[in-house]
């Protein structure tokens, strides 16, 4: 009988109830809140559901007894999944999927829109300067600032290289703000535009030949990676995925990259990023600072995109003016940012369809943020 009692009391010490701390409860509540946002408010459910459940999973309290179950324990299943984040495999695979799903046609039809994608990257560097002022080290500041690119995989890739101890907070912050793009961006867009400017109707983009579409990933890859070789993993996979799509000879591979493979990676990425936010690592003052910086980064990125369109319009003829509402799409949240341009355009004029125009800077933003990440990595690693 003593034997049973001893073993049972020993078992009780292993349960979550015996090991729970207030911090665990807070993080589980955060995870549940993310899931609620995804299901009830429809905020990026594909990202927030895996991350939300991951946060809960990563904060289930247990006794550290070498059972190889925790994310940070060698050889545990979660640890094996986590290697994709820690060693940076997942972000390039996600970029492969993005490339396979992206139509660069809108960008090729009106190449000057690429410059908007470049201008919006100022969000990254604006946040970098603020992060330095807040006392972060240059490598940490760069890891945090990349949130301004509005690109989750890029943020994970760069922070895993430059500031691995902040990666969990940075990843959750990046994805959270991407989900909050519909809340953050319209406010800034309205502030920086007049009603007349929001009504500007843009010319329909010209038809793009298949040759141009096939050429784009090859030329894009050569130009960007020759200038920034440190962005090779992301840019290489992005353009590889796009070439699979546009070559018209590898449709099957493009479909797999853009659907099944991408879904698998997103699931594992979201889950393990969520898991990595263990209370002891996550509930710190730095996390609060990172969330504040993330908001600044998104606002600066949106504002710089819109302001740059105003500057471009000074040099364009009356018939070729660009609607400044597509400036927000320079961040690489594809296609959310473009969708916001469309919605705001329709609010100003119910016949003004900006979606295809906004897709140009939007996909340029993907390239721009990957280039920016490569430059930061080159300078600081």
């Amino acid at each position, binding site marked *: 009988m003593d034997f049973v009692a001893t073993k049972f009391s020993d078992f009780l010490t292993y349960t979550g109830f015996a090991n729970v701390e207030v911090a665990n409860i807070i993080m589980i509540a955060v995870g549940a809140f993310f899931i609620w946002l995804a299901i009830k408010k429809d905020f990026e459910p594909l990202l927030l559901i895996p991350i939300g459940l991951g946060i809960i999973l990563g904060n289930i309290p247990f006794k550290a007894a070498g059972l190889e179950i925790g994310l940070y324990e060698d050889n545990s299943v979660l640890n094996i999944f986590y290697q994709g984040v820690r060693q940076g495999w997942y972000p390039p695979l996600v970029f492969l999927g993005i490339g396979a799903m992206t139509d660069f*046609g809108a960008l090729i039809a009106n190449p000057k829109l690429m410059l908007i994608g470049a201008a919006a990257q100022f969000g990254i560097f604006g946040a970098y300067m603020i992060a330095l002022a807040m006392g972060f080290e240059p490598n940490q500041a760069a890891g945090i600032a990349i949130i301004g690119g509005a690109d989750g995989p890029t943020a994970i890739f760069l922070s895993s290289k430059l500031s691995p101890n902040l990666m969990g907070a940075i990843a959750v912050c990046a994805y959270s703000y991407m989900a909050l793009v519909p809340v953050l961006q319209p406010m800034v867009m309205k502030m920086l535009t007049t009603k007349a400017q929001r009504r500007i109707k843009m010319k329909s983009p010209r038809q793009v030949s*298949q040759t141009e579409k096939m050429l784009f990933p090859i030329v894009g890859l050569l*130009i960007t990676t020759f200038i920034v070789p440190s962005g090779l993993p992301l840019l290489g996979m992005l353009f590889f995925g796009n070439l699979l799509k546009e070559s018209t000879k590898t449709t099957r591979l493009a479909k797999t990259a853009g659907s099944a493979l991408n879904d698998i990676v997103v699931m594992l990425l979201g889950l393990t990023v969520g898991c990595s936010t263990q209370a002891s690592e996550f509930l710190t003052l730095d996390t609060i600072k990172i969330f504040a910086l993330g908001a600044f980064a998104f606002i600066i990125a949106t504002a710089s995109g819109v302001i740059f369109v105003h500057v471009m319009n000074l040099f364009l003829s009356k018939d070729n003016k660009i609607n400044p509402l597509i400036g927000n799409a320079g961040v690489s949240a594809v296609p959310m940012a473009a969708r916001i341009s469309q919605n705001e355009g329709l609010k100003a004029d119910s016949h003004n369809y900006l979606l295809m125009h906004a897709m140009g800077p939007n996909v340029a933003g993907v390239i*721009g943020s990957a280039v920016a990440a490569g430059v930061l990595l080159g*300078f*600081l690693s």
Partner: protein
Amino acid sequence: MKKLLSIISLFAVAISMSAQGAHDFRINEVFVLGCPKQCPMTAADDSGYVSPSMLKSCPKPEFYVDEYGEPASWIEIENTSYTTHDLRNCFITTDRAVLDKSMSAPDREQLMSLIPAGDPRTLISGKQRLTFFTGHRNRGTLHTTDVIRLKAGEPNWIAIYDGNAVDLLDSVTVPALKPGQTYARLSDGTYQVCEASEATPNAPNQEYHNDKIREFKEKDPHGFAMTLMCMAVVFTCLAILFLFFQGFGLIIAKMVNKVAKPVVQPVVNASERVVEAAKQASIETKGIPMETYTAVIGLALHEYFGGTHDIESGILTINPHPTAWADKSHELRQIPQHHIQTPKK
């Protein structure tokens, strides 16, 4: 032709692969066993070799010991690449006679110490090091044969050779070192004499610190320079792409215009014919203007003959594809039928 191209490609890949690897090994640090000359307890033999047993009796020895606790000279080899490479079957030598190119490979091997295969320790990860003690081969892989002799108090030449004993991978002439000193390679490829306290067997020769981060912290505390440089690079990348596709788009547009002219004419004619045919036809319009009918038929014909709709940029199209799941013939919804068999008479 395809086979030939494939073989050439494979050959090119093989050459590029063999070009990496062993050539990344460098002699990273050398320690020559010695003892203060004034020490009465020890003396070098004619070749300058000080035996460990002699050094044991030295009252103030300045040396490092192997895994058996015996003092020994050592040679540290570093894999300077970022990839794991195996040092097995390579050779270490201290005899300059091997520089004679007319010497045969077997003769060379007599003057060299082979690094044996079969020991996982010779697999050196990127930027990692492995230290070999001189002499006592019977103590394991990390000991050289007795042909390797480092002479105290005079310069020593050390080289590592590839598995064929002919290709020189790296060599260094170590100056005469004082007891306890080592000769270490720095990150810029130069060598310097280090005092005993600075020797780092199996460890980097310099303390690791990220100079880049420190430099940015000191010289660009507010991030202005970083912002300027990064934005310039991002703009340059996308501006080059913009210029390329702007120019390329113009060329394509010109080409399309040239080619399209004869093609356009029949389409226009066809449309005109449709309009004429529609006007002449007595279609019941049910209040809808005849022009609408004409436009719909014209558009349908245009898409049918043009065949461009599915690859038109910026237009999302859902094409129904019959699959085994959607095929009506595979559905289990067929009305059951009673097959009444009439009894045979």
